[in-house]
């Protein structure tokens, strides 16, 4: 890895990074503030009185505790989609934007191999994404403890976020791969954003249940299952493992292609 390049890319993208942290911080705080612990207690009483009625409504164990609440309202969309947009933008800035504009010339007309450049850019992507997530987790925990002391099961919450890390790692790998094999920013954004968006929409359809429920096999987002992670299911863990493997494969193939292909410089 080349530290000069690493530092320079951080400096180049930190404003974008801060904007995303600010947006996420705001949403996280707002969502947490909308939690109502009383609702959970009421539902519990109801469930004890009429258990059959509750499961009929599928409300046996949902939305009642803070972590379930967050799992529904944050980890269903916001904590996936916002980081995803950040990843798409950053992955593009790090490789294809340089190739498209021609500034990659200066990175390669140097004693640094293409592999070194690619690895450096990969580290920038992963580190910025990871730290962004860490900060968001910190904010979530901080705000939760401030508003509802003791309500958040922090251990489970951390496991949930570890699962999210796996999903984001897979997204990073895919977007970086697209960035590495593309010559034009426009095309890279189209595929880098288009495919994950498509998969996400498929997941939303699958969530609607009924006949569409089988669509869950057509999207990788299924592999991130917040409920299963919180519950401690082992299936959740091999699914997250699969996400890590997918990410790793994309990184390896992307960097290998970048090393060998013709560049329009």
């Amino acid at each position, binding site marked *: 890895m*080349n530290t*000069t*390049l690493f530092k*320079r890319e951080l400096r*180049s993208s930190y404003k974008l990074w801060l904007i995303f942290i600010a947006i996420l911080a705001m949403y996280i705080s707002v969502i947490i503030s909308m939690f109502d612990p009383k609702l959970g207690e009421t539902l519990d009483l109801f469930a004890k009185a009429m258990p059959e009625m509750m499961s009929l409504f599928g409300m046996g164990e949902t939305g009642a505790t803070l972590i379930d609440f967050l799992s529904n309202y944050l980890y269903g969309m916001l904590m996936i989609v916002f980081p995803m947009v950040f990843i798409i933008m950053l992955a593009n800035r790090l490789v294809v934007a340089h190739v498209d*504009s*021609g*500034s990659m*010339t*200066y*990175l*390669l*007309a*140097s*004693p*640094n*191999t*293409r592999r*070194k450049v690619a690895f450096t850019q990969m580290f920038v992507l992963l580190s910025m994404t990871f730290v962004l997530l860490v900060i968001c987790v910190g904010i979530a925990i901080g705000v939760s403890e401030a508003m509802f002391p003791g309500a958040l099961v922090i251990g489970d919450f951390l496991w949930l976020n570890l699962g999210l890390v796996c999903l984001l790692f897979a997204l990073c790998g895919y977007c970086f791969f697209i960035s590495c094999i593309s010559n034009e920013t426009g095309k890279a954004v189209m595929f880098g954003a288009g495919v994950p968006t498509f998969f996400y929409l498929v997941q939303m359809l699958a969530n609607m249940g009924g006949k569409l429920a089988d669509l869950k096999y057509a999207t990788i987002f299924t592999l991130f299952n917040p409920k299963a992670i919180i519950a401690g299911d082992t299936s959740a863990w091999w699914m997250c493992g699969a996400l890590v493997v997918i990410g790793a494969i994309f990184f390896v193939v992307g960097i290998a292609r970048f090393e*060998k292909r*013709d*560049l*329009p*410089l």
Partner: protein
Amino acid sequence: MIKINHLTKDYGQKRGVFDFTFEVQRGEVFGFLGPNGAGKTTTIRHLMGFIHPNAGNCSINGLDCGTHSAEIQRNLGYMPGEIALPDDMTGLDFLHFMADYRGVTDWTRVEQLMMRFELDVRGNLKRMSKGMKQKIGIVCAFMHDPQVLILDEPTSGLDPLMQNHFIDLVLEEKSKGKTILMSSHIFEEVERTADRVGIIREGHLVTVDSVAALKAAQRKRYTVSFASEKEAQAFAKEPLAVDLVKGQEVTVTVNDFQPFVAAMSRYTVVNIVAVEQSLEEIFMHYYGK
């Protein structure tokens, strides 16, 4: 030092480079001349390891350009045909970045180059003029004192004074024994610095010859303006190689100056202009077409 061996890259529709073979010796300045689209930049991209050939190979200092690019770059300075600088830095930041990125520790050379070319680096790269960006490109290519230099249309965008400075710089480097490959579509630029010239056209290497031989092959043409059309027409009847008569002007090809000057002295000459010979004309004349 720089060896190009049956290099072929076919982009279709007759574009690309086809079976180039030539060598640049150590300490030589080699001019690479050809019209736009002839294949100069394609060849240079192969040398830089940016693209890979369909057939043939190229090497610098014994190292293959495709597989050992980073090692070659340690001692190579490159000026791309299009200077594409990042948007979000000042000139000075960029030069610092390039120096650190390459592992250049001696900043004095950078300062000397900046001063020599009157480079004002404080402004943002985005707002710099083409000439200023070109000068930054020069500093980047020379800052680490490389043994080999590959320069693609290096004086493009520079004013005549700076072009002279640049030519002086190239001649200095040559005297230090550096190997330089310089491409251009302007003969004069190459004329003053190169030892040998390779002429390429439509992807084919037409000829490799010394600059002296090429200069000798150049035709000398002059357009002489006379005081009246009558004089012009009378002059045109002199025993000279007259190419064109237009109004008061007569264009003549001159091999032997004495009869030309003697003839002119018998008329009222108002103006004489040397007609620059285009590259096409050099090629065509060289091949007697």
